[in-house]
C-alpha cells in the first residue's frame, strides 16, 4: 500500500513565556492510503496538536512530515494554504460553517480558493458533494436551519468538494448525540470505502471501534498502535437502531 502520511520524530514545543510545553515529543506515524485511523488520547495528550500538524495548520518544531511522499515540513505559509485547500479536507467538532450562508455556498467555499482551476463548475461540484452526504435536498438551507448532524454533513461535503486524498476529522461527533454520531460516522465509513483516507480524532472508545486502526497517544508519544479486531459497521448499527425506533428522520441514502 502507498504511504500517504509519514512522520519522523515529529516534535512540537509551545513556548508560553518562560515555560516550554512539549506537546509532541517525537511521533513516528505512517498512514497508508485507504486507511481509517482513529487517534485516541485524553485531553492534553497531544492528539489535537498532532492533528494540526498533519492538517498543515501548524508547523512542527522539529521532525519531518511527508505528505504523499513529499517532505512538506519545510514549505512556506502559502504552500501550506494550498495543501490545505487541495490535498486535505477538514471536519471539526464545532462544524465551523459560515453563519447566514447557505449549505451550497459553504460547500463551494474551498473551490473559491483553489487556484489550480481543476474544478470548472463550482456549483455542480458542490451539489455533487452535498448529494454524497445525503443533503441534496437542503442546498439553500442556512446552518441555523439545519440539525447538528446535518450541519456536520455539510461540513463533510465541504471537506470533500476539492477531492482530497485525506480527510481529517477532529472530534466530529463531540457535539452530537449518539444516534447522530453514528450517522456521521457512517458517512465517513462510506467515504473510506470509496478510497479516501480518513484520520479521526476522538476520545470515545465507541467511536474508535468504527475505524480500522487505533493509535493511542499519551504525553506526546505514541502509546500503542493496533488494528481494530472487531470493527463495527455504522450502517448496520443505524439499521439496528431503526428497528428499535418507530420513526426515523433524515435517513442517509448512502447507508441504506
Amino acid at each position, binding site marked *: 500500500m502507498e504511504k500517504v502520511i509519514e512522520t519522523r520524530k515529529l516534535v512540537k514545543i509551545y513556548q508560553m513565556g518562560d515555560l516550554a510545553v512539549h506537546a509532541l515529543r517525537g511521533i513516528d506515524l505512517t498512514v497508508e492510503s485507504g486507511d481509517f485511523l482513529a487517534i485516541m488520547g485524553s485531553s492534553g495528550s497531544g492528539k489535537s496538536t498532532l492533528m*494540526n500538524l498533519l*492538517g498543515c*495548520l*501548524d508547523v512542527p518544531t522539529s521532525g519531518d512530515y511527508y505528505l504523499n511522499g513529499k517532505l512538506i515540513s519545510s514549505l512556506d*505559509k*502559502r504552500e501550506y*494554504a*494550498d*495543501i*490545505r*485547500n*487541495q490535498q486535505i479536507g*477538514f471536519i*471539526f467538532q464545532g462544524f*465551523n*460553517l*459560515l*453563519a*447566514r*450562508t447557505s449549505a451550497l455556498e459553504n460547500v463551494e*467555499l*474551498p473551490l*473559491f*480558493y*483553489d487556484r489550480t482551476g481543476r474544478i470548472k463548475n463550482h456549483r455542480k461540484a458542490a451539489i455533487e458533494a452535498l448529494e454524497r452526504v445525503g443533503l441534496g435536498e437542503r442546498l439553500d438551507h442556512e446552518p441555523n436551519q439545519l440539525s447538528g448532524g446535518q450541519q456536520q454533513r455539510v461540513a463533510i461535503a*465541504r471537506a470533500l468538494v*476539492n477531492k482530497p486524498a485525506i480527510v481529517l476529522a477532529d472530534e466530529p461527533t463531540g457535539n452530537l448525540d449518539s444516534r447522530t454520531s453514528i450517522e456521521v460516522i457512517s458517512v465517513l465509513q462510506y467515504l473510506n470505502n470509496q478510497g479516501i483516507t480518513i484520520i479521526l480524532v476522538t476520545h470515545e472508545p465507541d467511536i474508535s471501534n468504527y475505524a480500522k486502526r487505533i493509535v493511542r497517544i499519551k504525553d506526546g508519544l505514541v502509546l500503542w498502535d493496533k488494528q481494530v479486531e472487531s470493527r463495527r459497521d455504522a450502517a448496520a448499527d443505524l439499521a439496528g437502531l431503526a428497528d428499535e425506533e418507530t420513526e426515523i428522520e433524515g435517513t442517509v441514502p448512502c447507508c441504506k
Partner: protein
Amino acid sequence: MLQIKNLLRVAMRSILKNRMRSLLTSLGIIIGVSAVIVMVAVGSGSQAKIEQNISALGTNLIIVMPGSSRTGGVRGGAGSFNRFTFNDVEKLQKESTLLSGISPVVRSGGQIIGGTGNWNTSIYGVSTDYFTIRNWQLESGEFFTEKDIAGKRKVALIGKTIADELFADQDPVGQSIRIRNIPFTIIGVLKSKGQSGMGMDQDDVILAPSTTVLYRLKGTQYIDMINASAIDTEHMNAAQEEMRLILRESHRLDEGTDDDFSIANQAEITETVTATSKTMTLLLGAIAAVSLVVGGIGIMNIMLVSVTERTREIGIRLSIGARASDILVQFLSEAVVLSLSGGLIGIILSFATVYGLNHLTDIYAVINPEIIVISAMFSAVVGIFFGFYPARKASALNPIDALRYE
C-alpha cells in the same frame, strides 16, 4: 489572484448582512464627500458670479489713468498730474496694433434737469469705441456717431436709472435734457447693467460725445482717462505694454524716467478679486475634507470590530485553504466597497443639495466635474488607507487560534 467579481460578491454579501451598520459606517464618507463637493460648488459658484460681474465691465478692458504729480518732493495723488489729451488717443489709434478699440473718457458731473424733475449724476464724454469696450447696449434709440463727435453735437445717451427717475412714464428718446444748463437731446437709452461688483449703480450715468463734454461742459483740454480693448484675452499683457510704450513716446519721456500714468487691465482686476474667492473655496474644501478623513477613521473602527467579530470566519477560511493574502484582499475590498459606495451616495446627495441651493436659496453653486472625480478617488483611497490596517490584522491571524476564538 482571485477573481475580482467573486471578491466583490463576497464583500457585498458581508456588507449587506449588516445593512444598518454598513450604512452608518458609510455615513461618514457620504457626508464627507458631499460636503467637499457642495462647499467647492458654492465656492466656485460665487467665483463664477464675480467673474461674470467683472466681465460686464468691458471686453478685454485696459484702463490708463493719469499719474501723480511731483512738486519739490511732494507727490500728489492719482490723477493729480493730468497730461492726457486727444493727441495721445489719436497716436494710440494710429500706432497700436493690438488694440481693437480706444476711447478717451472725460468725466464730468452735476445737476441735470429734464422730464419730470432733476437729478445729480455723472456724465462721461466718450468716443464711439466706448460702447464695445464697456459692453454697453441700447434699450431704445441709437448710439451717437463719429459725426456727432466731430461736430461737438449736444446729444446724450442716458442710463436706465436716469430714464426711470426723470422719464417715468414717457419715452425719453427725442426729449431734451439740460446738463449744467446746457440743453442736450436724448438719442438713446442704455440697457441696464445693474450694480457693479463693488455695489455701484452702473446705470446712473450719461454718455455724450467726448468733444462735447470736454469743450462745452468742462472747458479744458485734458481728458481723465483712456479705455481700450485688447484684440483678445491672450494679448492683454502685450497690448498693455504696447500702449505704455506709445504713451511714453507721446509724452516724450526719457529712458529711466517713470511713467507719468498707470495702466491696469481687466485680467489683473479679475485675478485680484477671484484670488480671494479661490482662497475661500480652498478653505471650505479643506474643512470639508477633514470630515472625509474622520469618515475614514469610522470605517477603520468598524473594520477592526468586524475583524474581531469574524475571527472564527477567518479561521474557517484559512483552514480550508485561503492564503493570508486572500484574507487581506477580502477585508480590503470590503473597506473599499464601503467607502466607494459611500462616495457614490455622497455624490448623488451633493447633486441634490446643489440643486436645492440653486432653486430654493440665493446661493449660486456650480458643481465642478473635476472635484467629483477627485472626491470619488479620494474616498477609494480612504478605503484602502483605513482598511489596510484591519485587513492586515485579519490576514496575520494564525488559523488554529482563529478557529479556537470564541
